[in-house]
């Protein structure tokens, strides 16, 4: 049995930030990740990180209001205020650790404009900000000598008398299964993009953390709020950063019209993401698309500017769409990108299950509500990663380990034996594809009652088939076939919770747009939907009022 004060699951920005802050306070910290830290999906954040720096004349209250309006008034205003207040110091801390950031003429940090915000307050490293920050945190992890279990897969959380006391995990390289005893476990395992097909998300984004938290007794909140990013490439679903529009790109339909002028006269292409995605889908549905896409045009920015600030996405468009953005517009479409919901957590990461914390995309604080603003996700991971690490480090000082021994791994071991012994013939690849396609069809940009009911039935039948997945690889060493099958179980649980939450919300708000109920209903629905597991293993829904402090909900226009 392994033993630590704090076990952090996930080594992206949230996980590593939590590890650093907890280690600074002297806690014995270990991070576990199914991939090496620098392979984490935080890499994929291209555009930047938001912060209202007062020495630039910006105000955190403006950032907070843009975030609240972006969330379609579903975000909790106390949490949003706190995130926006701490944003500046977090960005400066990253710069001090070594993040390079683009600069202005005076050598200070430069900013670019981003969607849904009235100020240019997005700090950035070209168009690979996430990768740049992820590598800096990994450097700091090396410097601090923090322990990382690289390429270990977490199978389950250990809960005794309602308290979380560790996790069971498998070394992917050897197949060895170990129990880790920990006084605190911080979930920082990221999102669930692969539940949808296609998705901008990496293949590792399989909702592991959300599912682990749910099985351990935590609630999942705002799960119906799934962000469709306005600019993704057809087929592969590869992301083209919002930075393109932040730098001035146009969106054009088949008639060469800048259609956003019509829908969002003030913000135009830089309205918030849910709005732009809906407008694009409307254009496509009404016959003004091109082969299911609209066009993203940056030609007027010129080659020099593009190669200085948008070099990576230019490469992506060349590699994955055969288009040089300098010469022609690139066809794009809305694509599944981010899960606003997740394991319900407070501003210190506490989930309600003693000993269990959550931070980053896996968590729902809720600072994104119905729709996340671009460049607020990196901020979310850092602010709440750090806070969770600090809170957990303080908590473990006065906490005893729960009673755990090696037998805690017995269930997982026998489950894996059973999976490997299965002689049925379903393939995980086909099942994942069927699940993803159903989720896209019934829980995509536009939803309605009948479609969602049909979607729920499809997920149920897919879940049944998943019991018969055949695992061809029977080995212990790097058995990715087994891992994918385990991930499929996590994904199906996430898919179900998205579906039941979406079907329950009888209004349109943020990313949840119902064609049969197109209006926002502030009388009935200024509340979060929570999904938890009941004693019989089924879903149970409950509700929590949205926290409103200074900003009363108003009609949302861009």
């Amino acid at each position: 049995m392994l033993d630590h004060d704090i076990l952090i699951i996930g080594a992206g920005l949230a996980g590593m930030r939590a590890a650093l802050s907890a280690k600074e306070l002297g806690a014995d910290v270990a991070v576990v990740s199914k991939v090496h830290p620098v392979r984490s999906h935080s890499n994929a954040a291209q555009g930047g990180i938001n912060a209202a720096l007062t020495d630039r004349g910006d105000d955190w209250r403006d950032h907070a209001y843009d975030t609240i309006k972006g969330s379609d008034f579903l975000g909790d205003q106390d949490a949003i205020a706190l995130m926006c207040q701490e944003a500046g110091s977090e960005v400066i801390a990253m710069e001090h650790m070594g993040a390079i950031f683009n600069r202005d003429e005076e050598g200070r940090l430069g900013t670019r404009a981003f969607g849904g915000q009235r100020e240019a307050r997005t700090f950035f490293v070209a168009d690979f900000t996430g990768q740049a920050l992820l590598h800096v945190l990994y450097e700091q992890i090396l410097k601090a000598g923090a322990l990382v279990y690289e390429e270990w897969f977490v199978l389950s959380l250990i809960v005794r008398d309602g308290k979380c006391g560790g996790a069971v995990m498998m070394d992917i390289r050897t197949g060895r299964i170990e129990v880790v005893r920990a006084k605190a476990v911080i979930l920082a395992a990221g999102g669930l993009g692969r539940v949808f097909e296609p998705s901008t998300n990496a293949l590792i984004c399989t909702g592991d953390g959300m599912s682990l938290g749910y099985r351990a007794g935590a609630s999942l909140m705002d799960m119906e709020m799934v962000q469709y990013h306005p600019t993704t490439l057809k087929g592969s679903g590869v992301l083209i950063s919002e930075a393109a529009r932040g730098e001035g790109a146009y969106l054009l339909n088949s008639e060469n019209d800048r259609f956003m002028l019509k829908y969002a006269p003030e913000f135009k292409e830089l309205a918030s993401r849910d709005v732009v995605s809906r407008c694009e889908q409307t254009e496509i549905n009404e016959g003004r698309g091109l082969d299911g896409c609209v066009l993203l045009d940056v030609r007027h920015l010129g080659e020099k500017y593009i190669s200085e600030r948008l070099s990576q996405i230019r490469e992506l468009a060349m590699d994955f769409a055969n288009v040089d953005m300098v010469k022609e517009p690139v066809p794009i479409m809305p694509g599944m990108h981010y899960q606003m919901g997740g394991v319900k957590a407070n501003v210190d990461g506490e989930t309600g299950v003693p000993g269990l914390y959550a931070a980053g995309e896996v968590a729902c604080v809720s600072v994104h509500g119905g729709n996340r603003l671009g460049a607020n996700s990196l901020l979310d991971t850092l602010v709440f990663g750090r806070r969770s690490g600090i809170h957990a480090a303080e908590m473990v000082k006065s906490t005893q380990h729960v009673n755990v021994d090696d037998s805690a791994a017995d269930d997982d071991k026998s489950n894996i034996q059973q999976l490997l012994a299965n002689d049925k013939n379903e393939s995980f690849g086909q099942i994942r594809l069927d699940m993803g396609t159903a989720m896209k069809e019934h829980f995509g940009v536009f939803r309605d009652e009948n479609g969602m009911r049909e979607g729920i039935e499809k997920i149920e039948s897919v879940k049944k088939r998943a019991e018969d997945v055949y695992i061809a690889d029977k080995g212990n060493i790097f058995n990715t076939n087994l891992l994918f099958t385990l991930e499929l179980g996590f994904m199906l649980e996430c898919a179900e919770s998205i579906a039941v939450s979406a079907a329950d919300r009888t209004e349109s708000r943020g990313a949840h747009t119902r064609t049969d109920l197109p209006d926002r209903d502030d009388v009935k629905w200024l509340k979060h939907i929570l999904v938890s597991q009941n004693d019989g293993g089924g879903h149970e829904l409950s509700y929590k009022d949205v926290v409103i402090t200074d900003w009363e909900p108003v009609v949302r226009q861009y």
Partner: protein
Amino acid sequence: MEVKFNVRRYDPESTDAVDHFQEYLVDMDDSSTVLDGLIRIREEVDGTLSLRCSCRSAICGSCAVRVNGEAGLACNTKIIDVLSLDGKTVTIEPAGNLPVIKDLVVDFQPFWEKIKSVDPWLQPEGEEPEAEYLAPDEDMLHLAGVVSCILCGACVSDCTVMEVDSNFLGPAALAKSYRFVGDPRDDSSQQRFKTLNGYGGVWDCTRCMKCVEVCPKGVAPMDRIMALREQVMESGYKNTNGARHANEFTNSIKHSGWLDEKKLVIKSFGIFNIKAMIGLIPLAIRSQRAGKVPPIFHKNIPGVENVRRIFEKVETKK
């Protein structure tokens, strides 16, 4: 189109654990990538095939493999661009210079150890400012070209020095070091130069260009190594084989218009380095036998004054 993937397999747990090639015939689109093909194989044809992959958009660095013998990312390599002469075959092997764990999965531990050994974190001196450090945008843009390294290991896979000398820090770690040496906020260059100037450091690169060729992100590690060499010398490390080699090389060309190989060897090691001089004797004998000994009298080439003029021009420009 039908594509024949010729994949090198290795299963350490099988009774006859030897590596071998396995063929898979898969139907792919013209726009498909090598990674699309490998994923299709493991999802639809053979679930036992192991490989690392994640982001599918050339940013996570997981899927470096050798395609037709050359390292690259599977995810941004289009099949149609790498088909062999028969128009249908692609050969996939694990990345080189790292031990294979299973199939296309290699052990990255030696890679990370090298990265760690260059102290890869910013080391500023003095008191931290309250706001950000001030730094020119050009410097940061220049660094962005190195910071964009995704640590995929393609350069290490195909490095011709690492193939024969496991002690070489290698292109990835040296480029990482350059990222800090070139950072105006970092104050530890002198310390870093000590490592870089040592055994396995910047002087062990043979300038074969392979890392520049295979890097999927345009980091050009070799160029960074060359820049580090200059800085190492400028910082005062002139009394090393590498530095003397570089100096004598320049002197020889400037003086005679071509390389005096005898003098280069002697000057690089130092004539009073008796041990090295004796060590060179077998090489001298072998060269003699192969008819490759340079002429005893090193004459100037015709038009040497033109070569000197080039030097003058370059040196005054500096």
